[in-house]
């Protein structure tokens, strides 16, 4: 069943992709969606087996790389962490497949689209079931490929192609760190299998010095930081986050599945997976906490200046990923996965809800052209509220449990870094509430700002799109309090057994003793933010403009997204080809050729003209002369030697 769950989506992708002529477009839709439905059902059974009963297993599939002492295989590792991820991936993916049938119904190449979605699911499952670093990297790059194909799905649009390439290349920068991290792990342990590496970590992992750029580094810290760079790319952390907002060029179901619920959380999953290594690298953890906190803040800040409904949700995703990352950095691994879990449901809900709005508005994404839609789209409106309240961390919605837990854990941390993250986290909770309510209020409230001629054809999405919304809304409502006790509450040590060592997570127990105000702060910040949002976008609509004028300096920074894209655009996107052109003109042609072959040619033809009347003008004749001379030389040397 484990093998079927992972590989059936691959088969479905192949059938939908290559067999479109045979099964037809409708057939492709049905096959992929039904397959994913089946996988999701099996995932529930697997969840019971591996998370409920606490089993662990490694199921071998095929030998892969055998090189000297390095032996790697394709295999499926199932433990509680994997089971959680498999459940999230297959269930959200099944919902997104179903939703896509409705959302993409006008697109002639939707069979290809479904095929890519299933391919993505397969890659993501390979990532989370990996039992060694290299298979994880296979899934890691594989989801990147699927993401690239899906972002660029509307491949006639230059902006979609730009965004797809940007996503792939920026992720490659992260992967650069990831592979070097894997190499360092191999240097440390001589192995890349998770069990062997983690088992040897406490002995072989400490007090090892690795020299890089002539400087000594603590090897395990270096390994963790390098691996973290991979997570920075995949999970859109500050510095390598610029691809994520652009990735919204892809169709909305893609944004929900890949760029909210699953792929972007792969970095968080990886950090939790390598927790036995992180435990030994406090410096690396501090870096992770700070990067995560800054990501949470920057994402939230930029979200304020966005008017594209998907862009707001995208920056919100970046911000929430920051929470997960700094939770992992503070060793609150269970809390990180808990937030990943709840976030998958409510953020997929928000994206698909936004998709329903976009669908109704004929692919208009600018919220300035929405307004007052709640009467037209009452179901979507109600569901969006559920998603938003979950994101805000208002009890009893799912986000409340997970976000609260992360911030309590940060407060319970002993370093200044975690306290910094706590402060930032509460501030960002406030900001999140404000910009998220902006989405609700600008879209559904106020007076209509769209072309009223089209008002009559704005209607609710079809059932294929609404059913997934209801399912995800149920997740956003219930997943928090259902999972709380197991993920972070009293049973957490037992629950995570086999995946996260209990002694790694003492911080969750310490968080029990936080003062009351710490436990209330995130929720209060959320409510305050909501109030401010109401004030700004319902009560006093002129207020945002006033803020923008008053703090024009800050406004300029967030409108320009902290200038990351501008700087990268000049330095890398334009700089690298320019350097390449210069090297080509002045290096290859100007130096090497000029003084090498062309110089030699000029010299030899000059000499040739002087020395001989035999010049024919055909340069290759000279080469033949050389060859003849060589043959003669061999003969002379051989016979000379033999005669001597």
């Amino acid at each position, binding site marked *: 069943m484990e093998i079927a769950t992972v590989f059936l989506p691959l088969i479905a992708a192949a059938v939908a992709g290559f067999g479109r002529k045979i099964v037809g477009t409708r057939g492709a839709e049905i096959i992929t969606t039904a397959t994913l439905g089946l996988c999701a059902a099996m995932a529930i059974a697997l969840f019971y087996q591996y998370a409920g009963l606490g089993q662990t297993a490694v199921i071998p599939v095929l*030998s*892969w*790389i*055998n*090189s*000297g002492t*390095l032996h790697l295989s394709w295999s499926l590792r199932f433990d509680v962490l994997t089971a959680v991820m498999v459940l999230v991936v297959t269930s959200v993916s099944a919902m997104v497949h179903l939703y896509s049938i409705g959302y993409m119904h006008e697109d002639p190449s939707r069979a290809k689209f479904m095929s890519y979605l299933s391919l993505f699911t397969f890659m993501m499952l390979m990532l989370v079931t990996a039992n060694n670093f*290299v298979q994880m*990297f*296979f899934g890691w*790059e*594989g989801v990147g*490929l699927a993401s*690239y194909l899906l972002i660029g799905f509307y*491949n*006639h649009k230059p902006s979609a*192609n730009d965004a797809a*390439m940007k996503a*792939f*290349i920026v992720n*490659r*920068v992260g992967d*650069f760190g990831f*592979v*070097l991290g*894997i*190499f*360092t792990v*191999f240097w440390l342990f001589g192995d890349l299998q998770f069990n062997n590496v983690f088992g040897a970590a406490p002995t072989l992992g400490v007090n090892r010095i690795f020299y*890089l*750029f002539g400087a000594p580094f603590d090897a395990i810290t270096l390994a963790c930081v390098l691996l973290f760079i991979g997570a920075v790319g995949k999970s859109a952390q500050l510095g390598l986050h610029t691809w994520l907002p652009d990735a919204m060029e892809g169709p909305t179901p893609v944004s929900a599945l890949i760029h909210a619920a699953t792929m972007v959380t792969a970095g968080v999953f990886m950090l939790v997976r390598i927790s036995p290594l992180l435990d030994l690298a406090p410096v690396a953890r501090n870096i992770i906490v700070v990067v995560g906190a800054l990501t949470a803040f920057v994402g939230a800040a930029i979200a304020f200046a966005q008017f594209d409904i998907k862009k707001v949700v995208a920056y919100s995703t970046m911000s929430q990923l920051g929470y997960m990352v700094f939770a992992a950095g503070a060793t609150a691994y269970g809390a990180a996965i808990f937030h990943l879990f709840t976030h998958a449901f409510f953020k997929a809900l928000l994206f698909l809800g936004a998709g329903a709005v976009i669908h109704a508005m004929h692919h208009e994404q600018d919220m300035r052209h929405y307004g007052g839609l709640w009467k037209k789209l009452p179901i979507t409106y109600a569901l969006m509220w559920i998603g938003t309240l979950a994101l805000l961390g208002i009890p009893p919605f799912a986000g409340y449990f997970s976000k609260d837990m992360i911030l309590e854990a940060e407060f319970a941390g002993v370093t200044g870094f975690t306290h910094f993250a706590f402060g930032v986290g509460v501030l960002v909770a406030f900001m999140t509430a404000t910009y998220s309510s902006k989405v609700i209020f600008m879209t559904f409230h106020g007076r209509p700002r769209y072309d009223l001629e089209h008002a009559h054809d704005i209607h609710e999405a079809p059932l294929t799109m609404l059913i997934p919304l209801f399912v995800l809304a149920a997740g956003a409502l219930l997943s928090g309090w259902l999972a709380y006790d197991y993920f972070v509450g009293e049973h957490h040590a037992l629950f995570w057994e086999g995946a996260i060592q209990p002694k790694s997570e003492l911080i969750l127990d310490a968080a029990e003793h936080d003062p009351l105000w710490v436990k209330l702060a995130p929720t209060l910040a959320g409510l305050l933010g909501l109030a401010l949002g109401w004030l700004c976008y319902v009560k006093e609509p002129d207020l945002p403009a006033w803020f923008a004028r008053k703090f024009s300096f800050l406004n300029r920074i967030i409108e320009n997204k902290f200038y990351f894209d501008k700087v990268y655009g000049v330095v890398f996107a334009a700089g*690298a*080809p*320019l*350097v*390449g*052109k210069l*090297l*080509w003109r002045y*290096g*290859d042609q100007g130096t*090497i*050729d000029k003084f*090498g*072959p062309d110089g*030699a*040619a000029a010299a030899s033809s000059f000499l040739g003209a002087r020395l001989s009347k035999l010049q024919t003008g055909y*340069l*290759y004749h*000279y*080469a033949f002369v*050389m*060859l003849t001379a*060589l043959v003669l*030389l*061999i003969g002379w040397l*051989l*016979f000379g*030697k*033999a005669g001597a």
Partner: protein
Amino acid sequence: MQFPILSVLTIIPLLGALFIATLRGDEAIVAKNARWVALWTALITFALSLVLVFNFDAANAGFQFMERAVWFAPANIYYVRGVDGISIWFVAASALLTISAILCSWNSITTRVPMYHMALMILLTMMIGVFSSLDLILLFVFFEGVLLPMFFIIGIWGGSRRIYSSYKFFLYTMLGSLFMLLAMLTIYVQTGSTDLTALINHHHLPLNIQVWLFAAFFLSFAIKSPMWPVHTWLPDAHVEAPTAGSVILAGILLKMGGYGFMRFCIQLLPEASQLMAPLVMILSAVAIIYTSLVALAQQDMKKMIAYSSVAHMGFVTLGLFSFTHQGLDGAMLVMLSHTIVSAALFLCIGFMYDRLHTREITAYGGLANITPHFAVVMMFFTLASVGLPGTSGFVGEFLSMLGAWQTHPTITAFAAIGVILGAAYMLRLYRACCFGVPATQDVRRMKDMTPREWAIFAPLLLLVIWMGVYPTTFSSFYQANLQSILTPAHHGAVK
């Protein structure tokens, strides 16, 4: 005496060439027959090379299918043939890519067709000779022999600047050959033997001589691979060569450089190679970054793939000179993968060139919707070139860097930047060809893959995935060889 399969393998294409030479009659019929004769000859050669592969004993680190005959007794020169796990795949690959070369020239070569196929056949003989000869002089003859047919293929059936390019190609590699010959003769003078098996196993050259020999061999193979800064012949040669020429050039001829490094530097001169390793690795890293950046700036597709070849070969030398098992293994796999992938990418360019007769990156666009099958095929090879896990490109690159990181992490960190740049230039190419809107109306009229083109691409596609998912099939052949190369007691014990 066992069946002399290697000699037979070498002679079959030659016989094919002779057969083509005897064809007489109407020009069109002769051309047609020449194509079929060449194709069948190549197919038979390939089938026979597979017999070689199936009968190979992977557990044995020594040379197999040995043939030994006196060639020139007074000088102690023998005709020695044999393959080990390192060279056997190149023999098979030579035959395979010759099939691709013949098929891709089916309609695009229309002048002097018999002569063209004779050149291909002779080229195949020479290539097999290089990878299965174990006597220095014999090997050198084949090594040089490869140049001639390739020179003609570029010089006669090439593009408009073919004379300049073929001349540049010839001059560069002749310079390398000269040094190689000098080195070989020095070895002969020093040891009195030209038998590579004896030289590797029983002779230990003093370090000061090793260093000089290394310099000479290194220059020769650096040109052949090619390595920065002696790479500038390659882009020109590729641009002017017909598709088949590029396929063989990138697929096999460059590997002669890598193979040479393995045999003559790593195996024959281990101490000097270790001594010079940091230098070679630095040059490799420079090559990777430099040529990747240059590839990013190219407008001609063939030039771009040519520069990317230099970068990929940088990973070969990076892995080889790391002197780790994974590094050497990675170098081998990069070579094998690049054999398939670079050939396939040139075939992809050939596919487009056959239809529109331009190699400008900006002249296409939107092929994903116009020729969807081709777009899928090209996507696979693009991803393999980028080194996506699951394709052949990944395993080699990964292992070669993994090995290099263990001994020279700083250099490897720079080389790894090539992984980012590689994605940038390959995706740029793919985007320009397959995504976006067609540049002209002619692009809209392009036809998708023909059965002949499927026949070219299908085996390569299969190999790319096979090598990515289960590389052990290929790498198990030379594990024992790598083990013996890296066991220090192996050298110097027997004088």
